[in-house]
């Protein structure tokens, strides 16, 4: 049995990496990659808490929630990348610093 804390530390690390990528990178696709890392980190938490839950282990709510998160993340990545491609077609750049037309 792997102790619960190890899972939590790993997910905290991946979450921090994802947070840095989402906040501190220029390319829009890199920001999306950071968001995916954060979603994966929270999924690891969900599964670890299911594994360390009380009996009976057939209360698989943690796994059900993790599967919902995976499916929603897939939908979000698809729409996000479609947006990025559409922006690239119009503006010829995906550099977030240069996409500031709405700025006051």
């Amino acid at each position, binding site marked *: *049995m792997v102790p619960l804390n190890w899972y939590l*530390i790993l997910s905290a690390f991946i979450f921090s990496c994802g947070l840095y990528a989402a906040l501190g990178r220029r390319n829009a696709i890199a920001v999306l*990659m950071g968001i995916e890392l954060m979603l994966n980190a929270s999924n690891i938490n969900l599964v670890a808490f*299911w594994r360390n839950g009380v009996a009976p282990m057939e209360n698989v*709510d943690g*796994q059900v929630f993790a599967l919902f998160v995976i499916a929603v993340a897939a*939908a979000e990545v698809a729409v996000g990348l479609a947006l990025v491609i559409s922006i690239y077609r119009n503006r010829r750049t995906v*550099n977030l610093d240069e996409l500031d037309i709405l700025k006051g």
Partner: protein
Amino acid sequence: MPELPALPSILELVFLAVALLTAVGALVVVLSPNLFHSALGLAATFFGVAAVYITAEAEFVGVSQVLVYVGAISTLIAFAIMLTRGMMYGTTSQRNRQSGTAAMIAALMFVVLTALMNAIPWPKAGEPITDGEAIIARLGSMFVNEYVVPFVLLALLLLVALAGAIVLARDRK
């Protein structure tokens, strides 16, 4: 002070190796100057996370992770990188103006989360899993009995996302 075991079990050693792979993958995503290498690091991270699920004996979620994330999402991200040839070859910096602040916030988040998690006394748990077949049957029945409304809404969401992505990315000539 809980006493540590004399020899970590094979499962713990496997978990340590897998966690190392995942952490290295996440660092490659964040720190690599070449965007395509970041995408490869992301695929490695997804593999690592799937292996973490399998060490936690949640095999269905692990295999679904490989199927959806590595098989489809990594390919989608790689396609998007190829179609929007932004900064591939490291000529401009990958970091924006607020990257220093972002790094500090990320480090702070990691420290706070780890401290919190070690401080909370989690209930001692972890029953051994006896019947894997019943868990998968229960997973299926949970989707259509207790969580049927989110399940159907998820199907609707996927349909809308599919149609929306195609409409958004279509050529408008």
